[in-house]
C-alpha cells in the first residue's frame, strides 16, 4: 500500500516551546486515519507542516513523496484542507467563498457542490460575517469535498456542527473513502473517530504515543465485564489479567486485559452464566490511559502526603 503522508521524528519548536517532539505519522493510501490528541498536543502544528504553512526544524516529512514546504503548490492541487476554526471573508457570501477556494485549488465540481449544499442544508447567499461557526465550517467542508483531490486533511472539522449534520458528515466521509480518497481526520470527538477511522495515531505533548489500527490499540486496554454466575465466581480474582475485582450479591464486576479475555470468559461459562455484560474499551478509555497518567499520579500523591502529615 502506498504511503500518502509520512512524518518521521519531526521536531518543531516555537522559541523554547517544543510543539512537536520526534513526532511520527504514517497515512496509507485510501484509509481514513484518525488523529487524536487533547488541545495543545500539537495536532494543528503537524497539519500546518503538512500544508507547508509552517517549516519543521528537523526530521523527515513527505506528502505524495513530495516536500510539503518546497512543493506546496503542486501538492495542494491534490489535497484539500478544512481548518478547525474556519475564518471567512466578512464581505463575501458563503457561496462565493466556496467557489473561490475551489477555483484557487484548481476547480470544483458544480453538481457536487450543489448536492453538498443541499445535504448540509447550507444557504450560500449569506455574507460571511453572519455565519455561525458550524456554517463557516460547512463552507470549508463543501469547498474541500467538491474539489477533485486525492487527500483530505481535516482539523476537527465537525466541532461546530449539530448532531444531524455530523451524521451527514460521516456519510459524506464514507463516500469519499469508497471513492478511493485518503482522509486525515484530527479530532477529539472520539466516537466519531471510532465510527470512521480504521487507523489511529494518538499524539500527546508533541509526541506520538500510540499508532495502529483500532483493534491493535484495543488489545492494549482492558475490557470491563459484569457477570452473574450460578456458582460463586470468587475464583476469577486469581486469574491472570483480572483487575479491580468486586463480588456483590453473586454479581462479579471486574476489568480484564483484553488479550486475557478468553480464559476468563471460559471460566465464567464453566461456572454457569446467568447474565454477562462485556464492554469493549472505548477510545475514551484509551485516551484516559494516555492522558490520565498525570491525574492518577496526583491522586496517588495527595493521600501519601496526608499520611506523612498524620
Amino acid at each position, binding site marked *: 500500500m502506498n504511503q500518502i503522508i509520512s512524518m518521521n521524528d519531526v521536531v518543531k519548536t516555537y522559541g523554547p516551546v517544543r510543539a512537536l517532539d520526534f513526532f511520527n505519522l504514517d497515512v496509507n493510501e485510501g484509509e481514513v486515519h484518525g488523529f487524536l490528541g487533547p488541545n495543545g498536543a500539537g495536532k494543528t502544528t503537524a497539519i*500546518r507542516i503538512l*500544508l*507547508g*504553512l*509552517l*517549516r519543521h526544524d528537523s526530521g523527515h516529512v513527505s506528502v505524495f513523496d513530495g516536500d510539503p514546504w518546497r512543493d*506546496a*503548490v*503542486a501538492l*495542494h*492541487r491534490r489535497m*484539500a*484542507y478544512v*481548518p478547525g*476554526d*474556519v*475564518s*471567512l*471573508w*466578512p*464581505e*463575501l*457570501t458563503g*457561496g*462565493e*467563498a*466556496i*467557489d*473561490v*477556494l475551489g*477555483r*484557487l*485549488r*484548481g476547480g470544483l465540481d458544480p453538481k457536487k457542490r450543489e448536492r453538498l449544499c443541499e445535504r448540509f442544508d447550507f*444557504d*450560500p*447567499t*449569506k*455574507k460571511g*460575517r*453572519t455565519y455561525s461557526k458550524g456554517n463557516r465550517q460547512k463552507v*470549508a467542508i463543501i469547498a474541500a469535498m467538491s474539489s477533485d483531490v486525492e487527500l483530505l486533511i481535516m482539523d476537527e472539522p465537525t466541532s461546530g456542527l449539530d448532531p444531524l449534520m455530523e451524521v451527514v458528515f460521516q456519510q459524506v466521509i464514507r463516500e469519499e473513502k469508497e471513492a478511493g480518497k485518503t482522509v486525515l481526520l484530527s479530532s477529539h470527538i472520539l466516537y466519531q473517530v471510532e465510527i470512521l477511522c480504521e487507523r489511529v495515531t494518538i499524539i500527546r505533548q508533541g509526541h506520538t504515543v500510540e499508532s495502529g489500527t483500532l483493534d491493535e490499540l484495543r488489545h492494549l486496554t482492558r475490557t470491563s465485564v459484569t457477570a452473574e454466575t450460578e456458582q460463586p465466581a470468587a475464583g476469577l480474582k486469581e486469574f491472570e489479567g483480572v483487575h479491580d475485582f468486586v463480588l456483590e450479591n453473586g454479581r462479579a464486576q471486574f476489568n480484564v486485559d483484553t488479550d486475557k479475555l478468553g480464559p476468563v470468559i471460559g471460566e465464567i461459562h464453566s461456572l454457569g452464566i446467568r447474565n454477562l455484560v462485556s464492554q469493549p474499551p472505548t477510545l475514551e478509555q484509551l485516551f484516559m490511559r494516555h492522558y490520565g497518567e498525570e491525574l492518577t499520579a496526583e491522586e496517588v500523591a495527595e493521600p501519601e502526603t496526608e499520611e506523612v502529615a498524620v
Partner: protein
Amino acid sequence: MRSFTGTVTLVRFYLKRDRYRLAIWILGIAIAVAGMAWSYPESFPTQPEIESRVSMIRDNPAGTAMTGPGHALDTVTPDNYGPMIVNDIGSFTAIAVALMSIFIVIRHTRKEEETGRSELVRSAIVGPHASTAAAVIVAALANLLLAIFIALGMVVQGHPGIGSLAFGLALAMIGLVFASIAAAAAQITQNAGGATAIGGITLAIAFALRALGDVQESALSWLSPIGWSQAIRPYAEEQWWPVLIPIATSLVAVWTAFMLGTRRDVGAGMIAAKPGPANAGPRMGTSFGLNLRLQRGSLIGWTIGVLIGGLYIGLMASEAESVFADMEIYHEYITIEGATLTDGLLTTFIMWITIVSLGYAIGAANRLRSEENAGHAENVLATSVSRLRYATSILLNSIVGSLVVVSAGGIGLGLVRMSDTGNTSELFRMLGAAVAHLPAIWLLVGITIALIGFVPRALALVWAFVAYIVMVEMFGPLLGLPDWTYEGSPFRHTPQLPAGDVSLLAIGIITVIALGLMIVGILGFRRRDLYA
C-alpha cells in the same frame, strides 16, 4: 428605568476594558494641543509676524476652510496668542475628538453585537438600553477629562483661565455630539464598519459645512457641530449659550438610539442584510481577482474621496489667486523659487493629496498582514496558490490602486484648473504632478511589505513614519520647523510639480529602493512560518 438596569456596572466595565486605550486617546490629543500651542510664541515672536500669519489664514479662503471663522484674530499680540491657536488647531483637533468618541461608542455597542458578546451581557440582568447608555456615558467622561486636560495645558502656558475652559469645553461638546450620533448609527447597520462609516460621513459633512460657511461667512456653519463649538469663541469674548445646541442634539440623538433600539432584535440592524450571490463571479478565480474584489469597496471609497478632495482644493486654489496676488507673505509659504503664486500653491496642495493617498496604499499593502492574522491567508495558501503569487497579488493591488487614487486627485484638481484657465493641458499637468509623487508612496509600501516579511510586529514603524511625514509636510510651515527636518520625507525628493523640475535620477533612486524593499519583503514572507 428598568431599561437601564446595569448601566453603572457596564460603565465601570467599559472603563476598565478601555483604560489604556482611553489614556492614549486623551493624553495623545491633550499633549498634541499643548505642544502646538507651545510653538506659537517661538514661531511668531513679533507683531508683524503675527499679522502676516493672521492675514494668511483669515484672508485666504483655503486657510479659512481648513481652520475656522477666526474670531478676534485682530486682538492677537505676543501676549495673547489664544484666538489664533484656537482658530488654527481647533478644527483639526475637533476631528480627532469626534473620531475618538465615535470609536468608543461603536466599540461597545454594534461591535459587541456583531461579535455576539452582547448576547452574553444581555442575558444577564441588564436593561435593553444599558449598553448604549453606558457607552455614551464613557465617551462623555472621556471628553470631560479631555476638556480638563486641554484647559490645564493652556492655563499652564499662561493663557486666560476662562478662555482655556471654553476651549476644552468646546472640543468636548463635539465629542459628545458625535458619541451620540454614533449611538444612533449603531442601531441602523448590522456591522460595526457600517456604523463607523455613518459616523465618519457625518463628521466629513460637518467639516465641509463649517468650511463652506466660514468661507462664505454664511449661516451654514450653524448646521455643523464643529461650527457650534467654534461659536463658543474661546479667548474671544466667550459666549456660553451655544453649548445648549450640542447638548440638545445629543439628547435627541441618544433618544433616537433608544427608540430604534427597542424596535429591533439583538444583533439585527434597522437595515436588514440582503442575500448576496450564491456563486462567485468569474473574475474571482485568481488570487489577484480575489484581492481586487476584497479591496473593491475601499478602492472605490478612496478614489471618490480623493477625487472630491482634488476638486475641493482646486476651488480653493483658484480663489487664492485673486485674493493673494499681491500678498508678499504668501510667497514664503512656497518652497520653490521663481514659481508663480498659483503654481507654488498647487505644488503644496498636490503633495498633500498624495500624502493622504498613503492611507489607501499602506492599508492595501497591510492586507498581507491583516489577512494572515484573520486566518484568511491560511485558506488561500492551503490551495494551489504560492506565497509568491499571493503576496504579489496583494502588492499589485496596493501599487495599481495607489496609481488610481492619486490619479483621481490629480484629475479632480485638473478639472477645476481646466475650467478656470480654459486650457485642456492643465488637466494633464495636474495629473502628471500628482503621479510624480507615486515613487514616494511606493517607498512606504515597500517598507510595509519588508516589515511584514521579516518583523511583522514592528509594523507600527510605518505609521510612525507616516506621522512624521504628515507632521513636517502639513504642519511644518505652521510650526516653523527648521529646514533639515523636512529632509527625511520622501515627498521632498520626488518632483515638486507643477512649480519645480523633474529629476529622473531622484525618481529612479526612490523607485529602485521601493522595489528592492518589496522584493526583500516578499522573499521574507516566503521563508517564514505563517502565523495564525
